[in-house]
């Protein structure tokens, strides 16, 4: 072959060296997903062999030359029941197995470390709580459950890491989460799998799995100097949030200190848990959940804060335990409309 066409020969050799039927297993969940895959391949093979054997075998046995006279048969309830119940049973096993895997992939453990991901046409932006920002890349340590809290700034995207066997849609206006525990250091593909416009196929990147030591080094070496919460604090001040949400007795807005993960009473009588989605809605659509005891006077910030800015604010409110610094800021800085001057330079940029 290599005498006939050296190019083709190269091509084939290259392929045989890199030929793979399965992507690498690099997360805690991957072996479980592959186990289900093998089970499904097995029942498919059995089903396929059965159908081919039946059709092929019967065609040979009862071809016209061999069997010139057909015998008419009505049917058989017993056989119908057999080939209803056996496939049904196999499908039910698949259903339960698949459901267990699904709940495992989509229910993050409590000790997972959180990384925010913002998808936009056509890039992935990852934000670590320590303030590390990455574009089309993600650095994660082995052995540590990682939860991604994701949102899209424009259209539907989908965050897919085949080597981890996880994927989740990234939706505008709504946080979605996915989690995994990386197990094998290396670099793996990151794809956007939901068609999102012109450069959909360029919305790709690399997931780098590091050993915990290397990850520490990476974290220390690539911080922007400001954590997400610190960015959020600046934004909180510059947007004038403190003028109402300052925790004073006569404040016009609810006290935010230590509010995260608590339950609050709404003016329509229902109650809600303060989580990322609740805070995001409260900033963008304040009338959606008006708190009991407060007038619906908060203006909407729709279109004024980017998704990254919202994440900064949420992170800030998450870590806000006392209103001491809020009140200090409210009393000392007089920012009439000085958003541009005080906006942080790093990220969480306020849209001009």
């Amino acid at each position, binding site marked *: 072959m290599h005498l006939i066409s050296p190019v083709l020969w190269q091509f084939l050799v290259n392929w045989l060296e890199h030929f793979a039927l399965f992507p690498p297993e690099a997360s805690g969940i991957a072996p479980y997903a592959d186990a289900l895959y093998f089970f499904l391949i097995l029942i498919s093979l059995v089903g396929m062999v059965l159908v081919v054997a039946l*059709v092929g075998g019967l065609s040979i046995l009862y071809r016209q030359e061999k069997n010139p006279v057909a015998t008419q048969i009505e049917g058989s309830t017993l056989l*119908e029941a057999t080939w209803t119940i056996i496939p049904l049973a196999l499908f039910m096993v698949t259903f339960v197995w698949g459901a267990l895997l699904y709940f495992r992939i989509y229910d993050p453990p409590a000790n997972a470390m959180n990384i925010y991901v913002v998808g936009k046409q056509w890039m992935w932006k990852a934000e670590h709580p320590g303030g590390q920002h990455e574009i089309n890349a993600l650095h994660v340590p082995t052995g540590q459950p990682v939860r991604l809290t994701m949102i899209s700034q424009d259209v539907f995207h989908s965050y897919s890491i085949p080597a981890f066997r996880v994927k989740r849609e990234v939706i505008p206006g709504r946080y979605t989460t996915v989690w995994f525990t990386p197990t094998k250091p290396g670099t793996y593909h990151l794809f956007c799998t939901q068609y999102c416009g012109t450069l959909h196929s360029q919305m790709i990147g690399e997931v780098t799995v590091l050993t915990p030591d290397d990850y520490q080094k990476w974290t220390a070496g690539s911080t922007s100097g400001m954590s997400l919460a610190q960015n959020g604090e600046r934004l909180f001040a510059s947007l004038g949030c403190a003028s109402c949400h300052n925790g004073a007795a006569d404040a016009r807005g609810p006290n935010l200190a230590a509010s995260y993960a608590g339950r609050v009473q709404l003016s329509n009588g229902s109650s809600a848990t303060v989580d990322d989605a609740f805070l995001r809605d409260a900033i963008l659509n304040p009338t959606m959940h008006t708190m009991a005891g407060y007038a619906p006077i908060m203006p909407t910030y729709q279109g004024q804060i980017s998704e990254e800015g919202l994440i900064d604010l949420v992170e800030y409110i998450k870590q806000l335990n006392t209103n001491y610094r809020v009140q200090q800021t409210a009393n000392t800085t007089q920012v009439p409309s000085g958003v541009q001057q005080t906006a942080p330079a790093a990220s969480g940029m306020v849209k001009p």
Partner: protein
Amino acid sequence: MSTIVSLPDQSTATMPKRSYLNAEYGLKSWLLTGDHKRIAILYLISITFFFFIGGAMAGLIRLELLTPQTDLMAADTYNKLFTMHGIVMIFLFLVPSVPATIGNFLIPIMVGAKDLAFPKINLLSWYLYLAGGIFTLAALISGGVDTGWTFTTPLSTHYLNTHVITAGLGIFVAGFSSIFTGLNFIVTIHRMRAPGMTWFRLPLFVWSHYAASVLMVLGTPVLAIALVLVILERTIGIGVFDPAKGGDPLLFQHLFWFYSHPAVYIMILPGMGVISEVISTFSRKRVFGYTAVAFSSVAIAVFGFFVWEHHMFIMGVSNYSALVFSLLTMLVAVPSAIKIFNWAATLYKGSITFETPMLYAFGFMGLFTIGGLTGVFLGSLGMDIHLTETYFIVAHFHFVMVGGMLMAFLSGVHFWWPKMTGRMYPEGLSKLAALTTFIGFNLTFFPQFIVGYLGMPRRYAAYPPEFQVLNVLSTAGATVLGVGYLLPMLYLTWSLKYGKIAGPNPWQATGLEWQIQSPPLTENFIETPVIDYEAYDYEWLANKTKNEVQTVG
């Protein structure tokens, strides 16, 4: 309980002097016809035209994917190609393929009627189809549309400035053509059966078309609503799907898949009807478990409406609702399995011959089994997370739609070609075409399962170089497949003039359509037939006196 059926001597067969083909002459007699058979031919010509347009796009897509880089065309062009390929193939070819052509031709004859219940609505449905097709072509010629055939919001409503509205209108109008066809079938099957033609004497072809018609009539309006909302959102910004206005972009997908999942069954059920007829005829044996096969069609139609969310398992729907939809998806797989096993059991103790329609039917059974089983992979929640939106899903639905439905369509076209035209197709060439299609198909789409599990996302104009070999295989297969589809196009056209004269019942099949002359008279039957035998009653056929065959002239 045994029957000897021997094929009639075709050398003595003569063309009938009068038939629906020569009842009237001139273009006007075709364009203003109310005859279901002529409308079926009009449909056949138009869907073939769109099939080759969609096929040419598929060819260009595969050519671009030969190399990992975007070198043949720009990413935008690629996006437009796969969008138009999907729209043309699904709405202008697969949905009308079997029902509007073979179904239109045969349903009235099979139930013993002179025409469909509403001949003028039938003609209107063809004109609507044509209008839909022209809108789609207009969108294509004026620059194309790149939403993907799924029109996902907010991409389609706010982020693209291609011809979304034109293409959306095309699908909207073509949708009404499918509603009218479905409506016509339902009324015809209910009201126009010949005396003695009870529900359980109907051929299974009619049962599966009945089930598909119910889906068309109930499902298509929801698609129309979804498209109108997209158009309104684009033009006046009503905000139903726009999160910035308090809308929900996911709502669109619920509406869209509420139609588009049943649409899969609209496409496949009529094909299953073809397979039942073909397998029975070439085994000279009644279909094993007639009632099981008939009711499995109904079961598919009923369950088919309650599985749409399995397209959205990873989209942030409630985990518990995903659980329900996954369970229902598993249930809808069972009736398809029942059908496959019943067809296989029909072969048992048959007297089997292997004419071209039978070869296509075997191809259908094999490929549809793979397509169906890989559907179970995707219906299984945890597996779907890894597989969805990759080439695995592309391979899966091409196995069902192309491997299944297109094989069934070609099987049906060959099977009823003598009835439609009065002439035989060339047997040797057509067997070669069936084989070529089968090989080409497997070579094209099987590698896509592997590359999908490796993680290659669908709708990518460029991909990582390690996926190249599998893509090269796929493109090579597509070339073979293309030859497999061009061949029938050529020899069937050739056979219109040079094919052997078929005679009324070349296959010695039992259906009512085979008891009348080929090609049939405009009024189908000289006098209304009275049915006193079951479907697939080969004994009745063997005892039937030869001169009962109704030929005029």
